[in-house]
């Protein structure tokens, strides 16, 4: 992505380039061990138009780096390679299968006089390994969610099938990566939970129980409101990646009809149905359509002894969304979908307005929101709960943060410091811009606060953070 820096106003046109994806490839070194067969190792390569020899060379370098690193750490594989122009991230999700992502460092292009080519300055310290390492791991998790493991494809149809699946998945998925806006939240990969009172929570739970009882085909259910999770029957790691898919891909694609008026042509499925606002986000767009197909996306989730394949039904009414997962061995029929629509539609509509009402009441009690002196990110490793007042809204295409990118990177630096030692810690730093940044790690929780109190001293900053912890996290103990 190209961004024009403000300095260009001064006449000398300086161009600033944000980090971008150079290459993304998947290889298995055991697939072409002999000389002349190197191409067989490559299962996927982006961009595909790269010349064959260059692909082989780049894969060869990765192999060499991995092999070389084993000289010093036989058990811990290489994770990244830093060069002047780019960074490469290595990930071996399954034995001998390597995923490599090459990210170009951000750079500044300075024009030269006399028609000389512009000078390029690479900003080598801008990319955080932890952030992009997490991005690669997420790429794999997302592949696995919709395709199962690489091993499964190999068993089912050999290398050809795997290559086909990789091609099909990553061709689309890579276009949705927005490397320039990745930050600490990608490292956590957390789930935002919707805060709720006990009564409403019980209502939701009993709704889930009722539906699961009436429609016994349903194996797992997840319930979200306002893109935030309320209830999930899935394993944490499966929910984490499903949540990512729902909130950054599926929901944003379907948000428009919600906003459009009732009579808008954008929401035909509502037209004939006055009883409720429920509709399928996956599967049939209109149940009344005689041509409607009852096919749902399949996902793979882990079980005790491997994985299982499931239909993913996402059903939404106003801001409430319910995901129902049904074994893929069952064929889903029009009957079933109508039954589900009839049962869930009205109840979910009701629940959605209940939650909405509750939410507004709570808001009113807590009083009008003042612009606080601080912004924070909280993450709990135990339940993956995350909370950020720094990010306005995180979708696949944009991640708006309200603070300077350098401050976000300082948060990332502190996070790296925390990751090195397995003990409770607190770090308070003052940036050159005089912002204070506080990081606290306690038990499995991490809290990062940015304070805009330039003249405060260490003691005052500490007091401020204490107050914040007392109001926002009153039941959590942080090391003082």
């Amino acid at each position, binding site marked *: 992505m190209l961004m024009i820096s403000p300095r260009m106003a001064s006449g000398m046109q300086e161009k600033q380039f944000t980090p971008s994806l150079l290459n993304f490839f998947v290889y298995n070194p055991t697939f072409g061990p002999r000389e002349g067969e190197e191409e067989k190792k490559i299962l996927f390569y982006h961009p595909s138009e790269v010349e064959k020899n260059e692909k082989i060379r780049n894969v060869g370098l990765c192999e060499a780096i991995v092999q070389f690193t084993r*000289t010093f*750490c036989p058990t811990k594989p290489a994770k990244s390679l830093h060069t002047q122009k780019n960074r490469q991230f290595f990930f071996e999700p399954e034995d001998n299968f390597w995923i490599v992502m090459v990210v170009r460092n951000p750079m500044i292009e300075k024009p030269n006089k006399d028609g000389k080519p512009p000078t390029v300055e690479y900003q080598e310290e801008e990319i955080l390994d932890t952030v992009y390492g997490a991005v690669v791991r997420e790429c794999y998790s997302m592949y696995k969610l919709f395709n199962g493991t690489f091993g499964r494809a190999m068993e089912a149809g050999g290398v050809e099938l795997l290559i086909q699946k990789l091609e099909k998945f990553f061709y689309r998925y890579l276009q949705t990566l927005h490397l320039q806006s990745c930050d600490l939240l990608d490292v956590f990969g957390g789930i935002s939970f919707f805060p709720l009172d006990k009564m409403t929570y019980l209502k939701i739970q009993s709704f889930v129980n009722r539906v699961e009882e009436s429609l016994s085909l349903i194996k797992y259910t997840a319930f979200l409101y306002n893109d935030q999770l309320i209830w999930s029957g899935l394993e944490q790691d499966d929910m984490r990646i499903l949540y990512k898919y729902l909130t950054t891909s599926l929901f944003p694609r379907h948000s428009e009809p919600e906003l459009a008026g009732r009579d808008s042509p954008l929401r035909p499925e509502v037209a004939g149905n006055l009883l409720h606002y429920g509709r399928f986000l996956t599967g049939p767009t209109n149940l009344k359509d005689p041509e409607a197909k009852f096919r749902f996306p399949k996902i793979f989730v882990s079980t005790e002894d491997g994985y299982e394949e499931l239909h993913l039904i996402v059903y939404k009414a106003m801001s409430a969304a319910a995901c129902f997962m049904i074994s893929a061995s069952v064929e889903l029929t029009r009957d079933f979908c109508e039954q589900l629509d009839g049962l869930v539609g009205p109840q979910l509509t009701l629940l959605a307005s209940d939650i909405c009402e509750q939410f507004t009441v709570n808001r009113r009690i807590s009083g009008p929101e003042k612009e606080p002196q601080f912004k924070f990110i909280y993450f709990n490793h135990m339940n993956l709960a995350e909370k950020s007042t720094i990010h306005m809204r995180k979708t696949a295409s944009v991640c708006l943060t309200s603070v300077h990118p350098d401050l976000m990177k300082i948060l990332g630096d502190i996070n790296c410091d925390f990751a090195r030692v397995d003990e409770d810690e607190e770090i308070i730093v003052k940036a050159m811009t005089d912002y204070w940044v506080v990081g606290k790690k306690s038990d499995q929780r991490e809290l990062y606060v940015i304070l805009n109190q330039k003249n405060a001293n260490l003691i005052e900053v500490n007091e401020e953070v204490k107050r914040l912890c007392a109001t926002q996290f009153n039941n959590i103990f942080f090391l003082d």
Partner: protein
Amino acid sequence: MDEEPQRATVSWENGTLAPVDRLRSERADSPTPGLVEGTEPGAGQESAMFVHAQSFEDLTAQAEEEVQREAELDKSGECAEELKVLVGEKTIEEQLSNDITSESRTKEEDVTSEAWRSHRKHVFVLSEAGKPIYTRYGTEEALSSTMGVMMALVSFVEAEKNIIRSIHADGCKVVFLSKSPLVLVGVSRTCQTDKELLRELLYIYYQIVSLLTLTQLNHIFQHKQNYDLRRLLAGSEYLTDNLLHRLDRDPGLLLSAVTCLPLASSARDMVSSSLQAAKSKNLVFSILLAGDRLVSLLRKKDQFLHHIDLHLVFNLVGSSSSFREGEGWTPICLPKFNTAGFFHAHISYLEPASELCLILVSTDREDFFNMSDCKKRFLERLSKRSAYQALKEALKCPSYSVEQVGIPELRHFLYKSKSSGLYTSPEFPDVYQSDEEQERLMGLYQDLHSSLHHPTRPLRSFYRCGETENLLAWVTSGFELYLCFSPLGTKAMAVSAVTKLLKWIRKEEDRLFILSPLTY
């Protein structure tokens, strides 16, 4: 010889560090953080003694060279082959290391063993032809194929018009530094950042240059690319070994600063003026050391000694006991001064069993007797004064304990005056008595240092509260301060400790720093 020192002077004057003569009265008793550079405790009054890098100028200079190098490079074809060889390397390597069991160096170690792998920090030096020059652990012979792989990686990435910097794995990183005609590789299990590790490799590079000069180094490899440099460096490995040891333990190398022997200013001034009197035409620097501590340093007007060069001299003197046996006369290149030529250093101890070592640096190879005479004159003059006795007394307590500062829960600290390039620090307290604990504390300081001096996101201050200690680091335009508190220390204590400590250092600065350095 002429160009380099000039450049050093110029950059000195143009830089923000230009020392200003100040009167004593301007020096406040209780310095505030808003201190202007040059008035912080420990700032020299006349002018600085040596050039000190403000932070990492050395590495930025390197970036410029790289641009040039890049322009010269254009040989992409052959590298695919190189890599093929290198991927299948493992087996050859194993054979090789099995063959070399008959080696007879003390460094001998099985380079495939877990013990070898788990050393905290490996350092390798190789030529651009991939020939081994130095390894910290194991023998170069046993590691020749490993180093071959290193070189292959470097040149493969170079062929793509790119530069390899580092490889990261969990708990282990490999950093590469190309300083033609040498390539240095560090493998570290510490938490140090790439930048810190590069700085250490750069020290090793300068150590080698100081033995040979860069001109000679270039000359050798231009003539014979495949030259085995170990032939020339044989017997000097201990210097590099020792320097690496210092890098792990000496705060001076971390801070780009030197520490002084605590000494009453009257005595120090006396020593300095005696050194000043014992001058000679070709004498450029006279340095009086007490162990690793500076007692006095004199320089020719307009000539500055870079802290890296000074540390190389410290390392030379500290690594070898042979200077104790009489007057030493050795060529030494001071690479930050001039990479092209040798100085000649007269190195001798004032008295046989004394810690006091005098180093006289001359430009003339035939100057031994002149220097020897200078030393005699200095000693004669000094021994007539009471200052000599005071100096000998001071040797008995070359350091101070942190209790003397009287700040509760403060365990240790480093304070560097930026304008003078001098630092002070108490001895390690009881909790950090073992080597491991001291290196761990140094590691914590290194962390703080690299956080504060981050190349794109530098910080003003850093406070870390952990289970074993609380740390506070603070950088202003005048000083750098690193404090280590017991885990019982609070933030309020830390804040008040800074004020108290600065006051104490101001009070003691006469003793702890060289406030009035002289020139010939």
